[in-house]
Every structure is written in C-alpha cells, then in structure tokens.
C-alpha cells in the first residue's frame, strides 16, 4: 500500500472511530473534528517525529491543538497510535474520565491543556523559542480554527513568532469558513487572510486540507524555509466525509442519531475501500 492509500484508509478509520466515540458519549464537537482529520492524520502518521513508547522524548516534535474542541480527532488518533488503549475512548466525556471534552495533558501524547481558543500559537511559539535557545532540532506544530483567529492573542503570537524568526514553528489554519454561528466572513471577516499573515512576516503555503499529497508537500517545504515561521492555510470542509454534515454550521456540536451514525459510517467505509 502506498503512502496516500494508507493515509486515505487511516483518515476514514479515524473519522469512523471519532463518530462512534461521540455517539457513545452523547456529546462532542462533531464537524470541526471531521474538518481537520486529514491534516492531523498526515501530521501524526507521516510528518511528526514522535515516539509512542516514549511520549516525553526530549527531541520529539510538538503538537498543540489550539482548536481544542476538536479533541475527538486528537484522542482517536492518539489511541490508534498506541498512546493509550482504544477501549478508553468509550469513557470520553464521562464522569472522571481523563478523556475530557478538550485536550488534557494527563493523557499521554497531549502536550498542553487547551480549550480556550486563541492560546495555542503563543504556547507553540514558546516551545519553538525554547528549541532555539537550547539548540534543539524539534519542530512545533499548532492547529488553529479560522473562527479562532478573531482572538487578538493569535495576532500577538503571530508578531512574536516572526520577530523571533521561529522557522521551527508551523501554524496550520483549518480554513473551513464556518464557526458556531455562521460563515466566518459574516460573523467577523478574515479576508484577505493570506495577506494578513504574509504582512506579519510569515511564509504562507495554501493547500487543499483534504489532499494528502498537498499537505505532505507543504510540511516538507516548511522545513526548508529559513528565518521565518510557516503558516499552512488549509482549505477544508467542515463536517468533511459525511454528506449531510458538510458545510453545515449546526453540526458544530451536533450529535448524530443512531441512524445518522449508520449512514455516516457507510459513507466513510466506501472511502476506505482501498485495501
């Protein structure tokens, strides 16, 4: 199986697993996780240098899920990688489970607690700065939502990352054009978005956030950029992979019924038929 086939299969499986987890829990942020599943699958199975049996390995690449509400895709991937037992996914959001509704650094593989939007980029910039200061080679990745970009703290960190020439930092924007209320351009316009980041001193790479090859190429290219941070502007579809959820704001934290879950799983199984 080649790389792309593997990622296609893997992402479909992650989507199925996270939907089952959400329905089992009776709660979850559904569409945002589906939106960034491909990005995170590429990061965790192809790009990042990490050791599952040594989650705190000093030289590991770091990942911060700034859009913490998409934790379902994160936990599902971490369990699949073997950071913890998949069975534990059944405890998602339950009383006293460590798999709470946002990233929890009591879970192996999770670096930092997130959930309040607009924090990830600054944390990631701090980690990247630390690598520079101690002459380490690890890279730092952070995934942000597009609605999240209305938080001023994002832009404070964007300034700093550029100022400190953090070329070991990669910001990724899950550009699905939706937030809870509506389309981002109706709620609080972001465009021209690429130009904004460019004017802050970032290298911009725009990709189809569901195209594995484009994502891989973008991450590879980011490693070659020197003297400035890279921003991967990933154009995505919120709810990707489940026809009735795609591009629908109401699926932000919509909970599928058993029938809807069955339909979703069926749609997602046909995508993964490559093996």
């Amino acid at each position: 199986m080649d790389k792309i086939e593997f990622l296609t299969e893997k992402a479909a499986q992650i989507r199925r697993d996270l939907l089952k987890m959400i329905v089992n829990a009776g709660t979850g942020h559904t569409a945002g996780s589906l939106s960034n599943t491909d990005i995170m699958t590429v990061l965790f199975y192809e790009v990042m240098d990490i050791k599952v049996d040594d989650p705190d390995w000093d030289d590991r690449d770091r990942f911060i899920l700034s859009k913490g509400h998409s934790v379902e895709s994160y936990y599902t991937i971490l369990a699949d990688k073997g950071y913890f037992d998949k069975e534990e996914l059944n405890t998602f959001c339950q009383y006293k489970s460590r798999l709470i509704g946002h990233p929890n650094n009591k879970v192996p593989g999770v670096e930092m607690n997130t959930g309040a939007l607009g924090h990830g980029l600054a944390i990631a910039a701090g980690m990247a700065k630390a690598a520079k200061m101690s002459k380490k080679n690890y890279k730092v990745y952070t995934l942000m939502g597009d609605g999240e970009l209305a938080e001023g703290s994002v832009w404070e960190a964007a300034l700093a990352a550029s100022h400190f020439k953090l070329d070991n930092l990669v910001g990724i924007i899950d550009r699905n054009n939706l937030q809870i209320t509506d389309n981002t351009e109706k709620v609080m316009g972001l465009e021209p978005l690429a130009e904004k980041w460019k004017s802050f001193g970032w290298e911009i790479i725009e990709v189809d956030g569901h195209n594995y090859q484009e994502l891989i190429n973008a991450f590879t290219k980011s490693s070659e950029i020197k003297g400035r941070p890279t921003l991967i502007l990933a154009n995505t579809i919120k709810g990707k992979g489940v026809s009735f959820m795609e591009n629908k704001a109401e699926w932000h934290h919509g909970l599928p019924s058993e029938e809807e879950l069955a339909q979703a799983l069926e749609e997602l199984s046909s995508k993964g038929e490559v093996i």
Partner: protein
Amino acid sequence: MSKTANKKVVCEKLIEYGKKDRDIVALTSDSRGSASMTDFGNQLPDQLVEVGIAEQNIVGMAAGLAASGKKPFITSYAAFVTMRAIEQVKVDVAYSNVNVKIIGISGGVSYGPLGMSHHALHDIAVMRAIPNIKMIMPADRYDTEKLMEELVNYEGPVYVRVGRNAVEEVHQSADYEFEIGKADQLSGGSDLTIIATGELVSTALKAAELLEEDDLDCRVINMHTLKPIDEKAIIKAAEETGKIITVEEHSVYGGLGSAVSQVVAENHPVPVKVFAIPDEPAVTGYPEDIFKEYGLTPSNIAEKAKEMFD
C-alpha cells in the same frame, strides 16, 4: 415544579425591552446560539453587534458603546468573559464606570465535561474584588425576569451569571419583591440559616425540607446579589438562628461562603459551614455528577447541618 433556563428568560426580556428602547444593544461573541440569543438577532438585527470569538473586544466595544449613549448587554461565555477579558472589565467598564451589563452564560460547571477551561468557578471572587461593578446570580426564571427589569432601569456596570441548563423554580409565582442588593428570604426559621446563590438555591430549599423532617426549622435565603451583599440579612440570620450554611456553585475561595464568613466574623461570630467546589480543577462530568462529588446535594447538606447540632 417547572423548569426553565435562565438564559432563555434573558433573551425574551431583552427582546421585549429592546423593542421599546432602540438604544439597547446586545453583543455576542460567536455565542448567540449558546446564549439562546438567536431570536434577538432575528427580531432586532440592527441592535445586535456580533464580534466573533473575541471576548476582550466584546467588553471593550461595549464600554465604547456605553460611553456613546448606547445600553449594551453582553451575552458571552462566563468562563471567558470574566477571565480573558477581565482587564477590559476592570478598566474599561468598572473603572470608567460605564453602563455595561455583562451576562455570563453557561456559568459554574454547566460545561462540566469540557474541563477547567470551560468551568466558571472564579467569577464571584474576581468580580467582588473590582470596585463599581455589581454581581448577581438569579435563582430561577422569576428572579431573572425581575432582574432584567431592574437592569434596564439601572445605570452602571453589572455582571450577571446564569447557567446553561433549565432550573427549577424556587418561587411559586412572580408575587414577591426582588431588589438588587437585597436578600430574598424564601422561608422563615430559627434553628439554622442556609444562604445559597444562583442555581443551587433549589438544592438549599430541598436540604431545608429534609431538615424539617428532623424538626429543624431552617431559614433559607436566596442571596442573588453577591455584590453589594446584604450584610443586614446575614447579621440578622447570625443573631436569630446562630448557625449558617452557605451553598454555591463556585470555588470555596472568594465566593459566597467567604463573603458571608467575613460579615459574620466581623459582626456576630457564629459557626459557618461552606458548601462549594474545593481548590482543585473540578472533576469532569455532568453537573449533577460534579455536585454529588463535592457534596452539593440536599442529603449531604442536611446531614452535615445536623452535625452542627452535635
């Protein structure tokens, strides 16, 4: 007892008053659905300012709107608007003393499973330490209705916390007096006083019912206004009942229990027992699970109350 979410009442009342007074402006931060404010947006689109996911900006803009003659009501997540934006609250709203009303939604552990980032268990402590701003936690829909009426008629900064879920009514009808800063005594009693605030007032009432079975006659006070707190009612309770219990959905530090203890200690020392969330990231789970974990239940409160008589 029927149940209504207080945030729904906030929206209904804002629509009612917004239609009469076009200077009333609601502000949302991608919080319209969560705040049940969608109807307001549909009916009064020209009086809604949506700022996106930007809690600092929502407070700063509200201050500017107020300073320019508008009557802004912020409806945003309690966890973020009282933390992320606290400097804007302190400086732009409270210090400049402008007419901004902040409705913090999904307060306390409404978002129980989502973790500490989404819990708002600090807001009484934070708000009480800032001069000029009042803080109120309505207990039920009647409180919320009356409070909204007071808010439109009052000029100055006020922070209100409501929860996400439907809450039981603690009043039989709207036939009672509601005044900001004045305690609302729900039942008379001479053995013990339970002072509660917000959506746990109903729990306090149930605890009092349990105690009645043991012939303990409880006074129950709905302390909807945390600041300015009704010191007279607290002192009177200390003098007349000799024992006080406080119940709140807040950290044990700096909340209702702290406020009541201070008044009691300074004026008429009697035993006080505080029921609140201990100093740790609250366990996660649904609100009922969390309340149970920390003994914020009628049976536990009643049991501990009885021990005060040993």
